[in-house]
């Protein structure tokens, strides 16, 4: 089980959180100008890297805030977390 450090509540067990997917994923627009391939890219395609990834989590059973986590998909190590919109270290090698 992951121990995730919420920026407001501190480290808690993974079942208190919900995963919100990789960031950034930018919505294309305006809608009438976006072709099917671009929508498919936006809806379904992710980097899914082996290693460091930047993703969104929400502390669903705690303060209910969204934040960004830098996590290693191989080792599950968490390098940093930060509230949305605040700077995070760059993803390293």
């Amino acid at each position, binding site marked *: 089980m992951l121990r995730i450090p919420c920026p*407001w*509540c*501190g480290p*808690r*067990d993974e*079942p*208190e959180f919900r995963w919100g997917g990789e960031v950034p994923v930018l919505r294309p627009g305006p809608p009438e100008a976006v072709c099917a391939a671009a929508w498919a890219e936006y809806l379904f395609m992710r980097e899914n890297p082996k290693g460091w990834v930047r993703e969104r989590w929400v502390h*669903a*059973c*705690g*303060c*209910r*805030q969204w934040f960004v986590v830098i996590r290693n998909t191989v080792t599950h190590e968490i390098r940093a977390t930060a*509230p949305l919109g605040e700077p995070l270290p760059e993803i390293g090698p």
Partner: protein
Amino acid sequence: MLERRTPLESMPEGLMPDGLHLAAVRDRGLLLLQSASSPAMQQALERELGLPLPAAQQVTALGEYALLWLAPGQWLLDLPAKMTASIETALGGRLEATLAAVTDLSDALISLELGGALAPEILMSGCSVDLRPHAFPPGCLARTALAAVPAILWNPGAPERIRCLIECAFADHMLSWLRSATRR
């Protein structure tokens, strides 16, 4: 006029074993305070009640009032039930010109008080927060999952006491979980 009742009404007092006391906290009101500006909320609370805003994961208390941190920009005011309507109106008035909301949650949540030397250990069998007295001193608060449901746990300052706020609908679940956790 409807009679005001809580799901804990039928709860027998003092049913728990030695080392654990469980009681429903009665005649309390709860106001959810939300504000886009902490200074505006701070000023309204200080003028109305003389209560400072708590830091994250903390509670400030004054007399019959306790102010619980919930999240950035969100607090919960625990107050005597008979004061709820007048304080709601007064705070609402002071915050009128700002982006803020005061909401009466008195009937949405129930408040339990657990006491006794066993209380931290029993609660910790259902959540991932360290509630032992040295790690969870008076004024500490944690929002967490207790027995798989969202709960607000806080230390009201009395020795060996932990308050637990949960949604009304989970009252029966929580009581039966507490009974089985106590047997283990």
